[in-house]
């Protein structure tokens, strides 16, 4: 009951959905569409679970006054203010408190965080690729060519950069994509046939 029925559900729904790609009959396509809407509904409702978890974790920190609890207060404040403004005002309107928070708080923070990585990624690269061997040097040299090839000072390297992007880079990533694809298919089959069940947790 606790394990068998869920595994049967996974198998039946998985097989129906997989077959629906090969059977063009309207009845199976209707079933597919019906199940696909389930995916969205269950998925969106599950997001609330993450929200509950985030609130719980931060509330516990505040209640126990653990070190840095004030940051949990800030997180909860951000969460509440965004939820309140999002449900009071129409999220589609360009000028309301919800959009203000998104445009002038969330976006600058995200953009700056990612731009900050320019410093750390460069220093990490210096430590990682310090030309210890030929392969590390290859990464370093390729990265430098690609970086210089995109700016005016390295205009002469632009054709070489284009060739690197279009030939070895594409070939390497094509092989990786093939691996991802085959791995994804294997994992999907393992889930459908009940071999992979870690996602169900333990009793």
């Amino acid at each position, binding site marked *: 009951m*606790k394990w068998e029925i869920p595994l049967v559900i996974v198998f039946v729904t998985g097989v129906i959905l997989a077959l629906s*790609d090969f059977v063009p009959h309207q009845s199976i396509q209707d079933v597919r569409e019906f199940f696909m809407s389930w995916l969205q509904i269950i998925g969106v409702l599950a997001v609330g679970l993450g929200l509950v978890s985030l609130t719980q974790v931060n509330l516990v920190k505040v209640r126990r006054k653990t070190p840095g609890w004030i940051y949990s207060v800030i997180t909860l404040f951000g969460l509440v203010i965004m939820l309140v403004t999002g449900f009071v005002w129409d999220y589609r309107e360009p000028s309301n408190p919800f959009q203000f928070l998104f445009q002038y708080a969330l976006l600058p923070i995200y953009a700056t965080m990612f731009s900050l990585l320019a410093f750390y990624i460069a220093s990490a690269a210096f430590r990682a690729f310090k030309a210890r061997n030929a*392969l590390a040097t290859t990464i370093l040299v390729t990265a430098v060519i690609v970086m210089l090839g995109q700016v005016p000072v390295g205009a002469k390297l632009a054709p070489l950069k284009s060739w690197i992007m279009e030939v070895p880079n594409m070939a390497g990533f094509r092989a990786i994509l093939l691996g991802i694809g085959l791995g994804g298919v294997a994992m999907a089959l393992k889930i459908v046939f009940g071999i992979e069940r870690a996602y169900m947790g333990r009793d």
Partner: protein
Amino acid sequence: MNGEFIPHTVAALFTLAIFSFLWKDNPLYKAAESLAVGLSAGYFTVILIRTSLMRTLIDPLFEEGQVLVIIPGILGLLMYLRLTRRWTWISRYPLAFYMGIASGAALSPTILAYVVRQIEYTIVPMGFGSWEGITNILIVVMVFCSLFYFFFSVPHKGVFGGVSRIGIWVIMVAFGAQFGFTVMARISLLIGRVQFLLGDWLGLIHLE
């Protein structure tokens, strides 16, 4: 002072708070980071509920009278039993539907996009008569060698070792190229933030 000054000042203060991490980990950075966690969780919840949930559950149920959508709605709510100790096993039912549907639906598109299309784009006209033909030969050889590097059914010795060695060189070049590209994307974001601080906020630089 124009009408954008106050919003830009708010954005600039958050930008500076995040940049302060370059000095060291400090309370200002931590506060901005914590606020971002809360704001983004709230933002995506609002967007998901007001777009996806309204479109798939609320509107079909209350406006179109589609009672069958109650089933996934209840299943979705059963997920919350994961928070209890005694009834947590019931949350496996909605999870089973989700994983079954997602896995079954993902099979064909994954094979098509990641396997069939990649092979299709690799099988291109080859030949030594033109630069394009030579490039195509190189692409096929490089893809084959890179794939072979991940093929562990035979020991990578002798000829196989050579092929696998070429594969790892190609993969390293690809990683280097992606790394360079990522660094440049981050630098372009950095330039954008500096332009915002010096141009939009302080008005010290004027860009055409």
